[in-house]
C-alpha cells in the first residue's frame, strides 16, 4: 500500500517549565487516512497537535509538509499549509449564525456576501453528510451541531489535514456513529484526519493507524487492523492492567436519600431540573447518565445545598436514628450541622472543590476549619489527615505545602476525593470524578467509590463514559434536558439502550424502574 506522505514530524520536543510534554516525537501522517493519536491524559497528544496547528511552537525538531520543512508560527500559518484543528472547547460567537462563525476572521477578496457563504457552507454540508442549517444562531445549536460548525470552519478554509481533539467526548453514541461516517467520507476525499482520543473502542472502530504516546514519548505507530484493545492498552499505560471493574452485589440496601418532584429554575428563569424523583440506596452505586449539560451538575449542587429548588423534597434517611431530615432549602453548613455526612466531589475540582493556590493541608481543612479553638485555626489535625490521604491514596507531591494547582490532575482529584471520604460519608456524590485522569488514577477512584459502597454509603456517580457506568454502577438514572428519562438496572441494560434514553425527549418519557 503505497501512500503519499502529508506530514512528517522529526524529533519534536516541547517543554513547559520542567515538564517535558513531548520528547523527540517522530510521526508520519499520510494522505487519505485516519490516524488516531492515542494516549492517556497528560501524555502530550494535544500539545503535539497544537504545534502542528500553530498554537505552540516546538522547542526542537522539524515539521515537514509534503516533504518540505516548514515553520508554523500561528494558526494562520497552519491554514496556509492547509492544516486545521478542531479544539476540544469550541471557539464560537454565540450571537452569530453558523455561517458567520465559519467566515469570521477570513480575509478574502471582494465583497462580503453572506448568501454566497451560506450556499458554500450548504454545499460542504451536503457533500460530507453533515446536518446543519447555516443560518441558525450558535446559541440555538446542540453541542454536536456546534462541533459541526467547527469542522466546517476548518474545511471552508480549505484544510486537507484535519486535527480533531477528543471529538467524541461531548457526543451521544448515535452522534458518534454519524461523526465517524462523515470522517470516512473525508478520508475517501483524500484528506488526512488526525483524531486525538483516549477511548480504545473508538480507535479500533474508526482509524486506519494508531500512534501511541506515553509520557510525551512516541511509543509506536501500528496498523489498526493488526492490533487489539489489550495490546493498545499495554502500549498506552506501559503495563498490563485489568480492564474489569469489580462490582459486588449491594448488601442490605435501604433508602438513604429520596428526591421527590424536584424543580429548579436558574437565574435566567430557565427550567433546569424538571420534576426529578429518585431514591439512592445505601450500599449501592447509583449512576447518573446524560449528555453533558443535561442538569447533572445542578442536580448534585441542589442536593448539596447550593441552590434553592422551586419545589420538591430532598429527604435524608438518617441511619443512626432512622429519622427523616429534609435537606431542601438548607445551606451546606446547615446540612453539616444537622449531622448529615454528605460528601460531594464536584465537577470543577480547582474552581469549586479545592482552592488551587492553597496547599494540601489547607485544602483538607476546608471541611473542618471551624473546629479550631476560639477564632484560631487548628492545622495539626488537618495536617495528619493530609498525610494520611497522601499515603493511602499514593498522591505524588513534593510535600504537604505544595499548592494543589501544581499537582497533576489525578493527584488533585485524589486530594479532593480523599478529603470527601475521610469523614466516612453516608451519601457520597461524585461528578465526573475521572475526567482527565489516566487509567491508573481512574481505577483508584473507582475502587474508592466501591469501598464506600461496601461500607454502606449511598454513592451517586455522574459519569460520561457509558462503559464505565455500566460496569461500575448498580442502577443508572438517565436524564435529558433536566428530566429523568429512565432508571435502569445497570446489570441488564446495553449501552445503546442507555444512549437512547439520553436523547429521549420529554413527551416520550416514561419511568422504567429497576
Amino acid at each position, binding site marked *: 500500500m503505497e501512500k503519499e506522505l502529508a506530514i512528517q514530524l522529526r524529533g519534536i520536543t516541547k517543554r*513547559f517549565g520542567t515538564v517535558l510534554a513531548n520528547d523527540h516525537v517522530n510521526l508520519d501522517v499520510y494522505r487519505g487516512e485516519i490516524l488516531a493519536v492515542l494516549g492517556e491524559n497528560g501524555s502530550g497528544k494535544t500539545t503535539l497537535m497544537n504545534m502542528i496547528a500553530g498554537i505552540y511552537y516546538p522547542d526542537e525538531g522539524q515539521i515537514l509538509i509534503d516533504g*518540505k520543512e*516548514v515553520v508554523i508560527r500561528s494558526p494562520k500559518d497552519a491554514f496556509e499549509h492547509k492544516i486545521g484543528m478542531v479544539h476540544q472547547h469550541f471557539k464560537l460567537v454565540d450571537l452569530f449564525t453558523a455561517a458567520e462563525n465559519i467566515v469570521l476572521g477570513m480575509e478574502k477578496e471582494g465583497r462580503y456576501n453572506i448568501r454566497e457563504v451560506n450556499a458554500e457552507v450548504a454545499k460542504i454540508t451536503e457533500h460530507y453528510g453533515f446536518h446543519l442549517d447555516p443560518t441558525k444562531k450558535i446559541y440555538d445549536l446542540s453541542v454536536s451541531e456546534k462541533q459541526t460548525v467547527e469542522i466546517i470552519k476548518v474545511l471552508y478554509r480549505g484544510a486537507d489535514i484535519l486535527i480533531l481533539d477528543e471529538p467524541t467526548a461531548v457526543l451521544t453514541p448515535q452522534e458518534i456513529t454519524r461523526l465517524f461516517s462523515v470522517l470516512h467520507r473525508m478520508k475517501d476525499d483524500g484528506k488526512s484526519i488526525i483524531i486525538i482520543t483516549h477511548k480504545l473502542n473508538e480507535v479500533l472502530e474508526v482509524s486506519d493507524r494508531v500512534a501511541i504516546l506515553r509520557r510525551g514519548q512516541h511509543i509506536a505507530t501500528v496498523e489498526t487492523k493488526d492490533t487489539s484493545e489489550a495490546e493498545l492498552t499495554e502500549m498506552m499505560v506501559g503495563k498490563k492492567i485489568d480492564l474489569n471493574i469489580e462490582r459486588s452485589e449491594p448488601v442490605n440496601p435501604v433508602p438513604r436519600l429520596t428526591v421527590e418532584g424536584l424543580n429548579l429554575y436558574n437565574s435566567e428563569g430557565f427550567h433546569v431540573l424538571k420534576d426529578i424523583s429518585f431514591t439512592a440506596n445505601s450500599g449501592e452505586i447509583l449512576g447518573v447518565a446524560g449528555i453533558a449539560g443535561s442538569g447533572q451538575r445542578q442536580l448534585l449542587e441542589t442536593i448539596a*445545598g447550593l441552590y434553592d429548588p422551586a419545589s420538591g423534597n430532598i429527604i435524608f434517611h438518617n441511619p443512626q436514628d432512622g429519622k427523616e431530615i429534609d435537606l431542601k432549602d438548607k*445551606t451546606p453548613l446547615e446540612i453539616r450541622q444537622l449531622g448529615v455526612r454528605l460528601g460531594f466531589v464536584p465537577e470543577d475540582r480547582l474552581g469549586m472543590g479545592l482552592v488551587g493556590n492553597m496547599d494540601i493541608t489547607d485544602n483538607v481543612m476546608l471541611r473542618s476549619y471551624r473546629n479550631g479553638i476560639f477564632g*484560631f*485555626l487548628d492545622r495539626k489535625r488537618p495536617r495528619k489527615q493530609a498525610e494520611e490521604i497522601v499515603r493511602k491514596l499514593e498522591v505524588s507531591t513534593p510535600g504537604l505545602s505544595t499548592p494543589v494547582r501544581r499537582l497533576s490532575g489525578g493527584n488533585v482529584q485524589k486530594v479532593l476525593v480523599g478529603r470527601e471520604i475521610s469523614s466516612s460519608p453516608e451519601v457520597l456524590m461524585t461528578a465526573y470524578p475521572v475526567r482527565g485522569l489516566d487509567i491508573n488514577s481512574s481505577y483508584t477512584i473507582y475502587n474508592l467509590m466501591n469501598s464506600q459502597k461496601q461500607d454502606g454509603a449511598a454513592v451517586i456517580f455522574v459519569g460520561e463514559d457509558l462503559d464505565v457506568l455500566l460496569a461500575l454502577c448498580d442502577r443508572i438514572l438517565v436524564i435529558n434536558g433536566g428530566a429523568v428519562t429512565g432508571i435502569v438496572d445497570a446489570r441488564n441494560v446495553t449501552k445503546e439502550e442507555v444512549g437512547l434514553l439520553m436523547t429521549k425527549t420529554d413527551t416520550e418519557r416514561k419511568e422504567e424502574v429497576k
Partner: protein
Amino acid sequence: MRKTRHGEAREPLVHLSKRASIPPLKAWGIRLLAIALGLIVCGLVAFVLIEKLGQHPERIGDFYNAFIKGSFSTSRKFWKFLKNIAILLCISLALTPAFRMRFWNIGGEGQTLIGVLGAIAVDFYLGGQVPEWLLLILMFVAALAAGTLWAVIPAIFKAKWGTNETLFTLMMNYVATFLVGYFLVIWVPSGSSSLGKLKYGKLPSFGNDYLLIILIVLALTIGLYIYVNYTKQGYEINVVGESVRTARYIGINVNKVIIRTMVISGALCGLAGYLIGAGLDQTVTADSVGGQGFTGIMVAWLGKFNPLAMILTAGLIQVLNQGASQISQDFDVSGAFPDVIVGIILFFVIGSEFFINYKIHFRGHHDHATGKEAVK
C-alpha cells in the same frame, strides 16, 4: 529549522514561557537588579534634567548619596523616616484583608481621610470641654466609625447587588475630600481655608513624638499577620478571595465575609486617620492623607499582601521618597522631580515581576535545563 517555501524562515526571535516556580533567592536577585537598573536610569535622566548635575558631572556621587542622606543622615530624619513608614504601613495593612479577599478597595485614601475628619470633628467641638483622655478616646471611636462607614457602604452594595467595588470605593474618596472642604468652610468662617493646629486632642508622646505611633503600627503588623494566617476569619478571607464558588461549596456565607472584612479594612483606615489626626497634625485638610491611600495599594501589592514583607516595601518607598526630596533640595530642582525619580524606580521594580513570572527564550538558545535568565 531553516528553509521553507518562503526561503529563509526562522523561529521567532523571542518567545515566552511561564515559570512553574522560581527559587526565592533568584527572585530577590532579579528584584535587586531591577532596583539597580532603575537607579542607573535615574542617574541618566538626572544628567539631562538637573542643570547643576549636567554642569558638574562629578557630583553624581552626591546624587546617589542623597538616597541615604534623605532618611539616615540625622536622627531627626531617621525618626521621620520611621514615622512615615508607620503611617504608610498602617494604611497598607488596612487594605490587606480586603485585597486578600480580591475586593479591590481603592478607597483607602477616602477611608483614612474621613477618619482624620471624624477625629478632628470631635476635637473641634469637644476639645477643652472634656478631659483630654476622654477626648482622645472619643476621637478614636469617631475615626474608626467614620472609616468603617466609608468602607462598609461599598461592601454592602457589592454583597447585595454586585456593584463594582473599585469604582464605588474610588468615588467615595472624592466624597470624603469634598466633605472635608465643606466642614472647613463651616469651621473657619473667616474665609481662609486652613483650620490651624488645634490645642487639644494630641496623643501623649513618650521619649519621642513618633515612638507611640511606630509601636502601635508594629503591634498592628504582627496582629494582622496572625489574623490573616492563623485565624478562621483569615482563612475564610483567603477562600473567598481565591474562589467564591469554593467558599459557597463549603458553606461560607460569602456576603457576611465581604462585609465583615470591609468593616475591618475601614476601621483600620480609620485608625490610620486617627494616628494622623490625633498623633501628628491636630488638624485636617483635604490633603491630610496626601495620596498615601494610593501608595498603600502599591505597598500591599509589592509585599504580596504579607504584612511582614510589607514592612520592607513600605521602607523601600519611603527611602525613595525621602531620597528624592533630598535630591531636589541639594540640587535645587523643582518639586516634580522627586516624583519622576520614584516613578522610574517603581517602574523597574514592578516590571521585574514579569521576569519573575516568565522565562524568555531567545532564538538559538535551548539551554532549558538551566533556564538562563533574561533580565533587561
